[in-house]
């Protein structure tokens, strides 16, 4: 048998290739730019992301296509998630510009790293073999480690980066261990073949498969930040520069969701009874711990970290119902959550100014007096996170609950809504501080903000209401991705 080299179809990977080429271009061009022309790097980075979105739309297939010997797929799910990832990253780049400039971090490397991270996420989203998933994940993680430590004069940032690196490496190790056991049993890394092999081997090696699955779930939940694998999240959120927190808190959630779908649903669908039980425990623990500990936080970034943990619990709730409806609802939840988190951190970034780092909840006091517009934008985000209609957060919770109740997990739904009542308290506290408290004397200066940031942030925040009132179109894409 002669091995024949097959030229893979490169078209499905066009967006990734555009991304890679452009990122290298940004890296080189930035070398020759003086500091005052740094804006060009930003512009080029945004153009890169916009081009990537255009490429995704251009190559979007009607039915799923795969390439590179089946290890790379481009389906409806990948199209929607890639557009969302690139779109959110554009928001991140625009929101963080002034913050970076004020804190001596306005450098080309920031954008290059961000773009590489985005490339890693896009690969994770399309990956359909263990190997590619791992490569994408590591590309993302390595870029993030460097971004967190970007402000090298800040001890807390270095600490956060260290912590993230050590725990992230451990999580990768666990994931790899799980993958190696699966490889040992099935002899394949490709998710389609894996799925078939697991099906046939299930009766022979139930314990080994369950063992391997456990490691995969643990690795996955480390990356998502589900309890009890959440330890890194609050420290990293708090320690990292706010612009990086904004990035970590948004786009990688989408990639993490894609990874969960690829691994658990596409690859290990036959073990769904097992992983759905594991996720049940993790989801309840995440919602409980996230919501309760968030109440005690005074640091806004740390509070949002715990809030993220509780939202991850809700996303897992959608996954564990193991129906197409449930996956679609989890997808809707993930995308809209990243939009909401972008507003919350975005407003925080705008409030951050040279010399006065706004990161405690108390720093927001009297925002309605000094800046009613930003107070309103943040209030919308808080109500959306709490799931109060007419914001999109309500609709996202509704779809997840609907999926859970559909499979007769009524008790789980009641637990979920009760924890979201607890969650409501700390979101309301932020609104209370902004609207009911009087501003501290030195904070009365109004914010001088760039017009583009204001427009984009406003559109971002108002979209939370718009999507809450008209969720149909986005929901239709999510349902299509799993039909």
């Amino acid at each position, binding site marked *: 048998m002669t091995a024949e080299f097959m030229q893979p179809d490169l078209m499905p990977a066009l967006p990734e290739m555009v991304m890679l080429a452009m990122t290298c271009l940004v890296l080189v061009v930035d070398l020759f730019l003086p500091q005052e022309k740094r804006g060009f790097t930003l512009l080029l980075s945004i153009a890169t992301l916009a081009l990537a979105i255009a490429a995704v739309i251009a190559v979007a297939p009607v039915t799923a296509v795969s390439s590179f010997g089946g290890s790379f797929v481009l389906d409806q799910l990948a199209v929607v998630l890639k557009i969302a990832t690139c779109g959110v990253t554009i928001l991140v780049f625009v929101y963080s510009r002034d913050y970076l400039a004020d804190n001596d971090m306005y450098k080309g490397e920031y954008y290059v790293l961000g773009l590489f991270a985005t490339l890693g996420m896009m690969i994770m989203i399309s990956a359909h073999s263990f190997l590619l998933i791992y490569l994408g994940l590591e590309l993302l993680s390595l870029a993030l480690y460097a971004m967190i430590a970007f402000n090298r004069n800040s001890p807390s940032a270095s600490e956060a980066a260290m912590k993230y690196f050590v725990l992230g490496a451990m999580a990768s190790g666990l994931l790899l261990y799980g993958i190696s056991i699966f490889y040992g049993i099935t002899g394949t890394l490709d998710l389609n073949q894996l799925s078939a092999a697991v099906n046939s081997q299930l009766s022979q090696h139930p314990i080994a498969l369950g063992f391997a699955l456990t490691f995969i779930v643990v690795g996955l939940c480390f990356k998502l930040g589900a309890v009890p694998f959440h330890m890194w999240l609050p420290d990293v959120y708090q320690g990292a520069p706010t612009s990086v927190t904004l990035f970590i808190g948004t786009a990688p959630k989408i990639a993490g969701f894609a990874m969960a779908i690829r691994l658990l649903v596409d690859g290990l669908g036959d073990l769904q009874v097992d992983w759905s039980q594991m996720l049940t425990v993790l989801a309840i623990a995440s919602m409980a711990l996230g919501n309760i500990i968030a109440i005690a936080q005074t640091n806004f970034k740390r509070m949002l970290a715990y809030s993220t943990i509780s939202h991850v619990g809700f996303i897992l709730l959608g996954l564990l119902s193991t129906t197409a409806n449930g996956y679609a609802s989890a997808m809707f939840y993930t995308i809209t959550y990243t939009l909401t988190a972008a507003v919350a951190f975005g407003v925080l970034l705008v409030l951050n100014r040279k010399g006065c780092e706004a990161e405690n909840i108390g720093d927001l006091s009297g925002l*309605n007096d000094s800046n*009613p517009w930003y107070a309103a934008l943040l209030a919308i985000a808080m*109500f959306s996170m709490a799931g*109060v*209609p*007419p914001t999109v957060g*309500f*609709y996202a919770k*509704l*779809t997840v*609950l*609907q999926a859970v*109740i*559909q499979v007769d997990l*009524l008790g789980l*739904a*009641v637990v979920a*809504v*009760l924890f*979201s*009542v607890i969650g*409501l*308290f700390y979101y*309301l*506290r932020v*609104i*209370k501080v902004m*609207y*009911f408290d009087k501003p501290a004397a030195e904070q009365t200066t109004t914010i001088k903000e760039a017009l583009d940031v204001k427009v984009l942030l406003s559109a971002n925040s108002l979209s939370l209401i718009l999507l809450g009132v008209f*969720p*149909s179109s986005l*929901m*239709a894409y999510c*349902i299509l991705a799993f039909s």
Partner: protein
Amino acid sequence: MYADWPLLSLVVWTPIFGGILVLLAGDKEPSGARKIALVVSIVTFLLTLPLYSQFNTETHLMQFVERQDWIAAFNIEYYLGIDGISMPLILLTSFTTVIVVISAWDVIQYRASQYFAAFLIMEGFMIGTFSALDSILFYIFFEAMLIPMFLVIGIWGGVNRIYATLKFFLYTFIGSVLMLVALIYMYTQSGSFAIFDFHHLKLNLTEQVLIFLAFLVAFAVKVPMWPVHTWLPDAHVEAPTGGSVILAAIMLKIGGYGFLRFSLPITPDASAELDWLIITMSLTAVVYIGFVALVQRDMKKLIAYSSIAHMGFVTLGFFIVFRIMNSGYGDQGAALALEGGMVQMVSHGFISGAMFLCVGVMYDRMHSRQIADYGGVANTMPVFAAFMVFFAMANAGLPGTSGFVGEFMVILASFKASFWIAFLAALTLILGAAYTLWMIKRVIFGEVANDNVAALSDINKREFLFLALLALAVLGLGLWPDPLVEVMHPTIDNLLNHIANPKI
């Protein structure tokens, strides 16, 4: 001429967009925001009038129906319509909002545009709640109205406002999330979120009891019923006058409306099974809370407790119907009880609103709500005293005022169920008179108590206007309640037919 107009949508969205307009107008021009607010509230009120004049009193079917697909994936519709029980409440809402705007005219100086906008947006949400026939649409309006109220109490409230407003929001939210679970459960059974599909959905007794309890938590908190009433006195005391008025006059009614629209028709068997629970809670509210009201020192707190007692009548009237039907008096008596409850809701809307406005008028002058700080107000504010005494009489249930009609109908109906229930309910006539009139005696009558009271000036034209409007409404409904009863009659009859048939 109105036949083709999407009248209900207009009534819902005019105040919401008007509110946004007021918000945009801002506070740079002090009178600009409130003028727009007044115009918007009056336009909305005028728009609700055809709902009454064009209303067909012959049918129990939904009228002014608008139905459109909204979220196709879950079969959620934009589905509006009104019948005899929602129409009077919508009119009450639009009327009260006009009063609130007038009453806040130059009292509110701090961020006036946000204040008026909050009330207009809230009006839209409340009308939406009353006219929504899709349960998710209902839920969205139901929850969304908490946001403006939360801000109103928190920004313009009294000293302890933050505690009060957080308690208000959390209490109502915890009640409603369980209702959401119940709604989704029924959706998975019926494949639709339309309320009428729920009405005809077959449910076994266990399901019904659980759903009934979920609704009970949601609506009992809203009404509020004893023992989940504790948020109300706090919220009322701390809220600005307008907030108290809306809270008492309309928000509490949403709980009562929910019982009629959801609990009774969706879970009739569970309601019959558990009616003892509601009756006990209602009678406790009437008697025990009546005594609690007696010992209050703060006028707003006293009226708040009196609201709880009066709302006890409403829930009593709604849930005593099963006993009346079983006792052999037939539907006649049951209809009397339901209609009595409805009349009581509308009447309480006028009276409690008026009482809170009266306290507001005094508070604006004296900055105190303590009964002990007053005395002999009649000497310095004779016109005002006349109004306040009139509303107090109505609150105590004096015949000829609207307060009498509802209470009388419910007590009369209760006699057909059980003498002792009627006896306990009738105690309110004594207790209500006691706590209201005692307060009047201490505040209005007697010698002028101190220099502050001596310096009071009587009400101005604006204050006269809104008190007179409310007095007319109270008197009109008291002397001639027929138009109101007639409107709701076919709906109530249909509801009774529906709940008389077991669903299991």
